């Protein structure tokens, strides 16, 4: 299930961040440690995830740990799934329409 959201997010770094947070809250420092980028870069990715509501930040003055919002993850999955299903269904109907118009041309 998580793999589909990772595809939706598109960016491999955000995939890493969500994977890590799925196992528990973490600070920016902890998240940045295994990644080949600065803490500022990690913070930018976290902001994208926060805008999507996938991650929330704690309010402690020092640490502000990042927290994965699982319910939101499921909502994002549904959003992407709906869009994909819309086009799968549309192509089925297009196939039917193409068959009809070519039949009429005989």
């Amino acid at each position: 299930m998580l793999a589909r959201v990772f595809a939706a997010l598109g960016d491999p770094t955000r995939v890493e961040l969500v994977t890590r947070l799925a196992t528990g809250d973490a600070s920016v420092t902890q998240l940045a440690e295994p990644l080949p980028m600065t803490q500022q870069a990690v913070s930018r990715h976290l902001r994208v995830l926060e805008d999507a509501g996938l991650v929330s930040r704690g309010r402690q003055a020092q640490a502000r740990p990042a927290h994965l919002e699982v319910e939101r993850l499921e909502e994002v999955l549904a959003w992407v799934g709906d869009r994909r299903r819309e086009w799968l269904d549309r192509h089925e109907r297009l196939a039917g329409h193409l068959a009809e118009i070519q039949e009429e041309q005989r």
Partner: protein
Amino acid sequence: MSGARPEPTEDELFTVTTIHRAPRELVFAALTEPEHLQHFWGPVGTHTPADRIVVELRVGGRFETTMINDANGQQHTMRAVYLDVERPGLLRWRETDSAVVTEIVLTDRGDGTTEVITTQYGLPPARRSPQARAGWRTALDRSVAYTATLAPPQHDLHPSRSTDPNPGSRP
């Protein structure tokens, strides 16, 4: 109320590949002419009047459709702007509300059939925006989805085959 819209990005949401049993030019026409679009654009349980479809087939031109729920008359209008138009092989447009980009690549398979790859790019709507929340699973979408499950299939034959690669295979 947040007025922020998600920035359009290269983030892929999904891709599906369909083989259509028709020449590429005909498939392209079906995707770009109101007379064709009206017949398949919206799901069962809706109609998409041709006279309310806007296709300005050029970069920067409008692409708009209005689906009307047959049961309750609720309407949903998609407004988009073309980013790329290359007859008969490429269409890209960006939806105004969501900034989601839809890209359609058509390839002649040499046997009278056409491969169509449909990809959408974008980010999920920002959580805090009420417009964004309204953008998913609106009452219209739910009622249409429900109606679609009641209707019999339109065609016994399924001349097209659509597949979407396993997204888990991506990094």
